[in-house]
């Protein structure tokens, strides 16, 4: 394969940063159709309008939601792009109003941030919107997401996005009927913190996101990341089915409840969850903030120790995993995946 280098060499001049968006169309009765904008680089949109209809695409398609206080969409898109996928950032209202269909994509992503300010508890208002707000056809976005998952597609949430998936009941969704079974609440320290942690992947986890990963270092940046699991039964089932896919560990790699290695006091020292299918995955730490070696607080010393150290960050592996997984699914599929057309 003739791959482009991910990080252009110094001698290669930087690509021009196109920074325009496609026009919006206003129809006769004054309603506007805001076309989506594609991310061609970190936070810069192209003028290329979105495809209205599904067409088989070469690249894996990642849809990244933004708007209303979400603020990690640019690095999220960069992560997918580096992993070889095509990333599209859309405003949540474009999806809610039916201008963009999630079914045209392979992976639906909820980035971090403070959706709607997080004043009612992290992720609550956004989850509520997905559950209750109906479009013209009387469908909620949650209806669409359930169908999306049933079609074998993937959903990922980071930090605030994870909180949304939990408050929505998509994680861990033991019952299968999408009701909240666990919650994420204020850190045991009572404070927001930005610090780097070590994670261990649950070897029993069935999620393609985590395949082949043993440990990773990533930053946490949250005030409400403490997972609380209600009831012994729920807890036991999560453990038995290995849905607690990521654990905070100490320097030795053992799961720990000791601050600050475990930054929030989560039950099961748990940093991330999957649903029972492994298709829906969420985590508090930010893998999209460790795409390059130079994000790590100790990069300079490590590079000195090993001048040939990879310039890739640990977080990128997750995105490579899921993109490769979707690609391999496509190759094995005899017929192209059925795409749900958003009916009107």
């Amino acid at each position, binding site marked *: 394969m003739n791959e482009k280098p991910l990080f252009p060499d110094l001698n290669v001049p930087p690509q021009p940063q196109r920074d325009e968006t496609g026009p919006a169309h206003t129809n006769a009765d004054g309603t506007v159709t805001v076309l989506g904008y594609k991310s061609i680089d970190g936070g810069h949109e192209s003028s290329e309008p979105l495809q209205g209809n599904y067409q088989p695409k070469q690249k894996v398609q990642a849809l990244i939601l933004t708007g209303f206080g979400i603020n990690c969409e640019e690095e999220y898109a960069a992560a997918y792009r580096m992993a070889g996928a095509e990333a599209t950032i859309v405003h949540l209202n474009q999806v809610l109003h039916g201008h963009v269909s999630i079914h045209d994509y392979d992976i639906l992503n909820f980035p971090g941030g403070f959706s709607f300010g997080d004043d*009612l508890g992290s992720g609550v208002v956004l989850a509520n919107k997905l559950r209750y707000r109906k479009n013209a056809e009387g469908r909620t976005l949650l209806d669409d997401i359930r169908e999306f998952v049933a079609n074998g597609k993937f959903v990922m949430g980071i930090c605030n996005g994870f909180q949304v998936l939990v408050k929505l009941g998509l994680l861990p969704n033991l019952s299968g009927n999408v009701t909240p079974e666990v919650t994420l609440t204020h850190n045991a320290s009572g404070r927001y913190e930005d610090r780097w942690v070590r994670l261990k992947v649950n070897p029993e986890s069935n999620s393609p996101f985590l395949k082949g990963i043993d440990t990773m270092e990533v930053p946490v940046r949250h005030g409400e990341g403490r997972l*609380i699991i209600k009831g012994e039964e729920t807890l036991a089932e999560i453990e038995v089915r290995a849905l607690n896919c990521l654990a905070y560990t100490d320097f030795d790699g053992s799961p720990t409840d000791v601050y600050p290695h475990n930054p929030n006091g989560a039950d099961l020292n748990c940093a991330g969850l999957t649903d029972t299918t492994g298709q829906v995955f969420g985590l508090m730490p930010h893998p999209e903030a460790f795409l390059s070696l130079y994000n790590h607080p100790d990069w300079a010393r490590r590079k000195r120790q090993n001048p040939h150290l990879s310039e890739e960050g640990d977080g990128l592996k997750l995105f490579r995993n899921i993109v490769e997984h979707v690609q391999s699914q496509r190759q094995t599929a005899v017929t192209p995946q059925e795409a749900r057309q958003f009916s009107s």
Partner: protein
Amino acid sequence: MESTQRTIQLLLKPGQHDGEGQRIAEAAQRHLGLHTGRVQSTALYTVRYPVTDEQLRDFATHCLQDPVLHDVALDEFRHDPGYKSYILVAKLPGVTDDEGISAQNALGDFLNQPLDTHTQHIFSKRLYFLEHELPESSLRRLAEELLGNKMINRFETGPITLIRDYTPRPGGGAESITDTVRLLGLSDEELIKLSKDNLYALNLEEMRAVRDHYTSIAAERQAAGLPQDPTDCELEIIAQTWSEHCKHKEFSALIKYKDADTGETFEVDSLFKTYIKDATSEVDRQLRANGNDWLIKVFSDNAGAVRINPESLFVWKVETHNSPSAIDPYGGAITGILGNNRDPLATGIGGARLLFNTNVLCFGNPEFSGTLLSNQLHPRRIFEGVRKGIEDGGNKSGVPTVNGAIVFDDRYAGKPLVYCGTGAVMPMQLAGLDSWEKKIDAQDRIIMAGGRVGKDGIHGATFSSIELDETSPATAVQIGSPITQKLAMDFLILATRRGLIKCSTDNGAGGLSSSIGELATISGGAVVELEKVPLKYPGLRPWEIFVSESQERFSLAVEPAKLDELLALGQEMEVELTDIGYFTSDGFLDVRFDGESVAHLNMHFLHEGVPRKVLEAEWSIPQAQEPALPTDLDYTDVLSRLLGSLNICSRESVIRQYDHEVKGRTIIKPLMGATGQAPQDAAVVRFNFESWEGVAVSNGILPRFGDLDAYHMSAGAFDEAVRQIVAVGGKLPNLSYGDGNFWSVNDNFCVPDSVYDPIGNPDGKQKLAKLVRMCQALRDATAAYCIPLTSGKDSMKNDFKADGVKISVPPTVLYSMTAKIEDVRRTITSDFKQADDVVYLLGETYDELGGSEFYQLFNELGANVPQVRFEEAKALYTLMGQANDQGLIQSCHDLSDGGLAVALAEATFGYGFGADVELPAGDLSVTAQLFSESHSRFVATVAPEDVVAFEQHFGARATRLGRVTPDGQLTVRHGGQTVVSASTAALRHEWTNGPVNRIIGFGQHEAAH
């Protein structure tokens, strides 16, 4: 008519840990000496929207309740048994209530109704229950000092049997009243009284100028059907526009300067023009002569702009928000950040993408234990409030706070200084137009975007231009809403790229009166229809609407043909846009309400009519001498104490509560190393994920040195910011033809009242002389390094007066610098990287302990203030750039507070290395070698294999000190004697456990019950 009021209460389920309640109980005991017993915290939502019982219950249980954590009570105030007192914390009318608005948003979604989120239907409150029965006075105290602020909150307190609720009830009925203010024929005394009574903050001469203007146009106004006297709105507009905050009258004044020691006198024809604008013009001339034409926009817009590369601009602005932070630290700081973020957002056409924040804070000693003056907040409270404001303002905006500084000095106990900086990136072209230009034609529409207008923040511009006293007005306080601004920001980014906006500006100080007043100078006039401005609640008079500083608003100039598309985009993105008038070219600012004239002002008079001030400055060298200290000092102990001192100790507890890496581009963060505890010099942020280009960010501020000489203080602060950038691998500008290595500096002066008054301000001349000297140093520094200023601000009245006492800040200047980094992978961090690397001191140390942290330990000031030797400094910095190109430097830490000893210790904090160091022999005392704060110096380490090349390169500028050791021991020798011997782990412990982390508290898991 109003609908019935319903109440939803959320309580933690039995067994859930009430962290907030526990923190309140602890803080009440620790800070106020009040024994509350257990505290139960609950959330209240008052719903003033017609809902059925079933809807209310379902909304509460499905949308507000976390089923794992909460129980719900409807239309009652439930509490666990055994509680005796209650405190209700509600918000005063018009105060930002993001939580209430969020709940309302959720209600709209839940009911699937288009519930207008701009009118408040749900009000959030907190209701606390206390185990002990406390007297009313104690409950009030707890409420006002711990739970809220009486400027923004309404408290109800008492025994639990008598719970009173409170929900804001904004005044009813529009007040479309415009009064005229009698001005013609007023005497001097009456003019002064009028200015003071109405908070115009105009002096006699300025009031006379207004009066004379109105006298001269009396006939003209009469003919036009206008009253001869000005309207209330006109006077308010003039006061806002002429305020020190907006007009910088003292920086534009004619200053008569006298040196009392030498007898020398000279005149300064505007500090701004002489030392800032002209100095930058000269720098620009030199840059252009050398093929460096990256200086795009200076001083003429909301923020300065320099070119990064042919495609993009870097936009940079730093401002202060001092006065509001003194009254409401949280609201003041959050508003400061959001307001400063709006500056780059609204530069040129608008729509820059924010890249980072940096904040520099000056506080009084948080461990102050004396008696506070009336309405003076405790420095600890100001510190905690400002810190929280920055946490919410920065984090919720999705902008990383990449570095900053906190300076403590008792003289900041009256007014703190809160500097907020924002860097942003903007494409050179937006929809085919030069992005940095502001163009407006007559007939373009005026669109207000973002939040609604209330009474909050009326008089902010004039209020910040006077000294604070115990009667300072509550209406001057505002609370920013980060989420409202985030929506507006996302909208601006898209709208500008679609070419829908001709230009934009933010509504900051002075509100619409300033933003439209300024934009109207481009086209030459404007008509504003105030009845169209959306209000938070009725009851505002036209003049209040026009000058209100309600936050999160932008004023946009929009071509009529693009209006529909713009409004549709606003609707799609849920940003309220209102067409409130149009630009004209007739030379008048014409403000109307329902067609009636509210203000009709000649633009030329408004912007040019302010009389010029003439001020006096007189300088004499302060008496100072070097102290005699004990000769048998234990330097290990001194170093340890320095590391634990207020101005040097770790700020980790503050730093970690700011998101410093959102956007994933922060390369050098404030704390680095394997431990995450090695402090760094400048921050480095890359611009995007496609190239390795980035920007270094630093702050220079050294108020202590100003007590010895304001010139050297200012020069030193400038050098400090430059050398921090050089330390991380930045290169000076203009070293070679067309190197494109941009630098962009903001200067921010914060000084006490410097206008001489024989009674009120007897040392005013000396204070002004200090300001002149600070400016002179600035001019010399920019010329020496060829570094341009691109924007700046001055805050002139940083005094707090109460009970007959005045607390004035020391004259302070902050230089906030940014410089291009070609490849962020080649930047350098401060911590030692490997054992056996060789340690060098770069630069020359002098006997300059004056104003040092070392002397501060002994409560001495000394006399020998550090001076910047610009030529030598520039030569060293140039060599360092070359050395970095060759990869010769492994770690580099600039020397500042605490001198060489502290820098050596800090460099070990990243990994647990030690260092074995021998101080050179010579005339300089050990004390000076260890603790002198001479400028333009670094501690650098070099790999053993590079030592020859390194020494050849630097020659006499590098002093070999020793080597990095693996044993975690810092040993410093001099003349065969060991002068410092300490475990670096112990030193790090002292540093980490200093007063700042103790006060803010370390993060730790709270014990659950």
